[in-house]
């Protein structure tokens, strides 16, 4: 405990230097700005800014890059809530309730919830990372391929329930999502699958193309079709901040989301996205206000936002203790460190204590900066909704197209996005949900990869899934969930609950 305090003191002394504070603020600001531009993600920004960091001290450089990362995460939630545009996997579920809240005139409250929930989750996760990083690493290492498979299987099973209409349609969309996820080069053999000879498809369909198409573009088409709904947003902006009632409702969801995000975030690969999906499911099952889900429930914003921020923080653990980046942004940060002559890895804690602890404390500082930047700006963001559609929609389309192009510098992805926009429009016409499709798209290929790896390593013995305790318990929970869905009498009860949820 004393060493922890001493370490944190060292960290804060680093993070609170004028230079580092300035760059943390600058990073958070740039991150927020690019986060609200649809599709222009942190990867593109950080790679553009990388050369600037060559001249900085490594600690300052990494603090600024981390600021961009958090800022972009938060900015992504802003567009998800206001414009139905999820730019990141983790904001897909924020869209579901957040955009409905915005349509109900509670955009300000949704944004404030996201900011406060993220800040709280970030603060808790920072302490957890500082106190038990190495311990958590050993937990992450104990997850083998079989365990990952079972965890993701569980995720897919419960994601079918995400659909607000019929279970069959939900499962159908999950399966379609899994199918889309299989497009591209097979990891195991290098074979091309479902690419139809199109070279641009050999690395798969880009997540952003599906997400922006299915949600953002489809929503624009839908809105243009219904002129009478155009005034809904502008007329009912409502109070900018949270009412006492809303605050009270959000608190338990934030707590649950934080816990879930911190636990799942340490798993390299997919931790952050799983945690926000998972949190939404939990809220929908256990919240006292679950009957309001689907109409703009604040719990559906508070929980997932807290979970994804906690997970984003916790995903630094594998990077800092193992030197293994959990995603593309982390890979760029490793790159920045290597260029500075620092090899991230197990020895970093001892070799560069000021960098290690400075970064951990700057995570918290970065979250604080985001709160400072964003709370006053909520009024401005909400004003964005008052921009007439004839100006707003072309602007969104242009930014979507630029953002999409900038990911791979490839026009093909822009066409794909348009295609998914049309598909998303058709889906809403026949009441098919986009969220289960995206979850299938993200989890399906990971699940396949872990399944095949587990089978390779066990030489084809399926018993490996039930012999490992972690895997066995995940499968048991999945079986219970499946049974609950399939047993006719239980299912009737579920449908009743769904009907209540509207």
């Amino acid at each position, binding site marked *: 405990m004393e060493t922890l305090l001493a370490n944190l003191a060292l960290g804060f002394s680093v993070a609170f230097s004028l230079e580092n504070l300035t760059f943390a603020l600058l990073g958070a600001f740039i991150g927020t700005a690019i986060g609200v531009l649809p599709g222009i993600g942190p990867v593109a920004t950080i790679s553009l800014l990388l050369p600037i960091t060559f001249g900085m001290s490594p600690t300052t450089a990494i603090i600024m890059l981390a600021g961009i990362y958090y800022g972009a995460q938060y900015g992504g939630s802003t567009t998800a809530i206001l414009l139905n545009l999820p730019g990141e996997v983790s904001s897909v579920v924020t869209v579901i309730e957040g955009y409905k809240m915005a349509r109900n005139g509670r955009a300000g409250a949704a944004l404030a919830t996201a900011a406060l929930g993220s800040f709280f989750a970030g603060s808790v996760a920072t302490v957890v990372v500082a106190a038990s990083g190495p311990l958590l690493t050993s937990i992450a290492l104990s997850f*083998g391929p079989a365990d990952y498979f079972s965890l993701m299987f569980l995720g897919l099973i419960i994601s079918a329930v995400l659909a607000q209409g019929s279970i069959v349609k939900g499962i159908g969309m999950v399966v379609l999502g899994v199918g889309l996820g299989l497009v591209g080069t*097979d990891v*195991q053999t290098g074979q091309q699958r479902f690419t139809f000879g199109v*070279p641009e498809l050999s690395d798969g369909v880009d997540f952003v193309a599906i997400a922006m198409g299915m949600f953002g573009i489809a929503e624009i088409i839908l809105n243009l079709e219904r002129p009478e709904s155009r005034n809904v947003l502008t007329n009912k902006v409502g109070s900018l901040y949270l009412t006492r009632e809303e605050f009270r409702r959000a608190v338990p969801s934030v707590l649950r989301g934080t816990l879930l995000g911190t636990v799942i975030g340490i798993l390299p690969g997919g931790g952050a996205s799983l945690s926000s999906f998972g949190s939404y499911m939990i809220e929908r099952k256990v919240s006292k206000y679950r009957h309001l889900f689907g109409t703009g429930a604040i719990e559906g914003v508070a929980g997932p936002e807290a979970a994804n921020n906690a997970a984003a923080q916790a995903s630094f653990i594998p990077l800092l203790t193992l030197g*293994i980046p959990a995603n*593309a942004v982390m890979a760029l940060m490793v*790159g920045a460190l*290597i260029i500075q002559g620092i*090899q991230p890895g197990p020895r970093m804690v001892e070799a560069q204590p000021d960098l290690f602890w400075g970064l951990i404390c700057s995570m918290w500082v970065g979250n604080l900066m985001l709160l400072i930047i964003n709370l006053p700006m909520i009024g401005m963001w909400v004003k964005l909704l008052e921009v007439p559609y004839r100006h707003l929609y072309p602007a969104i389309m242009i930014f979507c197209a630029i953002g999409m192009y900038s990911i791979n510098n*490839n026009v093909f992805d822009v066409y794909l996005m348009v295609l998914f926009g049309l598909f998303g429009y058709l889906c809403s016409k026949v009441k098919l949900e986009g969220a289960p499709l995206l979850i299938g798209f993200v989890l399906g290929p990971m699940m396949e990869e872990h399944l095949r790896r587990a089978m390779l390593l066990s030489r084809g013995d399926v018993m490996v899934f039930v012999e490992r305790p972690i895997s066995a318990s995940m499968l048991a929970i999945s079986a219970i969930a499946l049974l609950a869905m399939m047993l006719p009498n239980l299912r009737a009860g579920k449908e009743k609950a769904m009907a209540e949820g509207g």
Partner: protein
Amino acid sequence: MSGHLTRRALAGGAALLATPRLARAQAWPSGPIRLVVPFAPGGSTDLTARLVAEGLGQRLGVPIIVENRPGAGATTGTQVVADAAPDGQTLVMSNIASHAISPALYPNLRYDPVTSFTHIAMVITNPSAWVVNKDSGIKNLADLVQAAKARPGGLDMATSGAGSSNHLMVVRFCELAGIEHTHVPFRGAGPAMVAVIAGQVTMMSDSLPSAASHIRAGTVRPIAMSSAERHPGFPDVPTFREQGFDLSSTSWFALSGPAGMAPAVVERLHREVMAVIATPTNQRRFAEMGGTPGDMTPAEFSAFVASEVARWAPVVRASGATVG
């Protein structure tokens, strides 16, 4: 190339003829230079490109824009440069995937790794390190072969992906040793290394820059280095040849442009790249990453690419990996 310049300078009568070429050389660079990286940001190709871009931009006095065009085993971005005008404004970070392995892997490739390009300068080369889980009891390649024979299906061997140079090395080694193996590909070196540290997979063939920190930290044990000689940064790790296997392989990152670039531009670029990688800071960075700075003339580099293509084609066939 310098011979060419001297000859031109001496031949006064050729001045008229040489003028347009000279003018073209002086006009270069005519604006920002595009450096295409055929991989996503954050990888070793990307990092090397950004290091080169920084120094080269300063020396040439124009910005170098690094443009990531990932996809299809590095062939998407490489094709873009093969199709570009040979005016020296568009270059590619060529590498073992785009110019040695993918030509054998992708039968429908539109570029020829040798004739579609002007090969300019080798930037950095690095060997692969074979590492094992530290509780595996395997201390050298002989132990590895023995362990492989003892397990049905051979030993589990992790790599960063099917068709990567590391995968192909594993294939070649098992041929030489006459053993079976179970190839366990991952999406990138990071997750594969985690699996080896955690003991889920026994062994991994990894390029030295990504394995170096784990070897130094002692979380995995190195058993062989794929360089021809022992690596100066890891003098205790024996090579494959020392352990009786005729196998050596180095991964490389280099600078190339479209076919038909003006010799004067090529000469200038080669000279400046050599100057950039010779700075003490970059030498230190390369050493930290476990790489060796390149040292080849453009002609030598071209011949090297041709030899790489010839060398990997049969291994790709043996691995059974094909695309398309």
